[in-house]
């Protein structure tokens, strides 16, 4: 194989090699903060958030030829915990000494970056305890779609930016559940 041909052959392989990208850090949703504020008086602390790996939940997350990691902690359960912590903080409802504890298990965490459409699916089981007794235990699942691109240089960064929006939607579905609000009051 001549030198230019070897280069032409190797260059695309290099571009396809697995690179590591990081999900965009979570930015709280104003809607979610308002929902929590409207539920006041609420005081809660953050409990254990963990990930049930397997099936559609692997870490790091495969995004085309790349793998996506969490910008906080060592799993996307840590990302979810950080997201809840930020929103409770901004809503003025986070209280480390509260008797109400919110925890969760990440069940499904999948980002499918297609040529035309990207799809993010997250499912988590949320558990609220008051003085150790379970007051709420439900699974919330959300799915979001966005315009994707054939070019990985566009599609992969867009997927990393969309990820926090899927988490916002997941938390929005949790906060809008009257049973959840009743449990944390």
């Amino acid at each position: 194989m001549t030198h230019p041909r070897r280069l032409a052959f190797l260059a695309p392989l290099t571009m396809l090699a697995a690179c590591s990208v990081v999900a965009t850090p979570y930015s709280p949703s104003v809607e979610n903060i308002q929902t929590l504020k409207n539920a006041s008086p609420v005081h809660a602390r953050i409990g254990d958030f963990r990930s049930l790996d397997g099936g559609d939940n692997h870490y790091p997350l495969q995004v085309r030829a790349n793998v996506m990691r969490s910008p906080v902690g060592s799993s996307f359960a840590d990302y979810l915990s950080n997201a809840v912590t930020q929103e409770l903080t901004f809503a003025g409802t986070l209280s480390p000494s509260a008797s109400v504890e919110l925890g969760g298990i990440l069940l499904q965490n999948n980002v499918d970056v297609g040529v035309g459409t990207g799809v993010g699916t997250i499912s988590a089981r949320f558990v609220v305890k008051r003085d150790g007794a379970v007051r709420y235990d439900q699974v919330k699942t959300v799915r979001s779609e966005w315009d994707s691109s054939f070019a990985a240089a566009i599609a992969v960064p867009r997927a990393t930016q969309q990820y926090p929006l899927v988490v916002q939607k997941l938390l929005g579905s949790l906060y809008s559940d009257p049973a959840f609000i009743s449990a944390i009051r």
Partner: protein
Amino acid sequence: MKISNVLRAACAAGMIALLSGCAHDITISGDNAALVSKTASPINKTVGLIITDEERSKEVVSPGGGGDKVAYKPYHDLELPIYLQLSNVFKDVIKLNSVPDTATSQTKNLSYIVTPTITTTSSSPSLLTWPPTDFTVTLECTVTDPSGKLITKKAVTGSGHAEFSEFKRNFGLAAQRATLDAVQKMQSAMQESAELRQ
């Protein structure tokens, strides 16, 4: 056509697609921890912040480096920083998707309606890298009473600069610095406004 010719054509098309002036997505607001600081004497009024769904989804494309462009959603990205800034200045803030009618204003006890307008500029002298190294965010807040009477209008410009070596994985760093600068300047402008305390 020989396979080698097909490969060459595919490589050429791929390179053209890569090098053509595509818009790279960036986020123009970052860590908002610096904006969580209620002022010692917040204005004892409840304000409504209006950012419509249409504004939230509005995408702006502006220059990056190397002939490329960057794309972002200013109203979506600045919604939280502006909300936090207003929360620092006023007793309470309520985010609204449209101008409230009289009944809504009364129910929510709104004293003022704040309508932001955001404009941006971006640039980079780099010929080889696309992230903008210089960014400005001009934030104008029009404050009216619920009947629409103008109370005051404040405009500030925040600027942000970031060198390529600082970017790491955050290609919107210059923009995020500009946003923080603009929002902090707006907070100062509102705190010093006598009209808002009347």
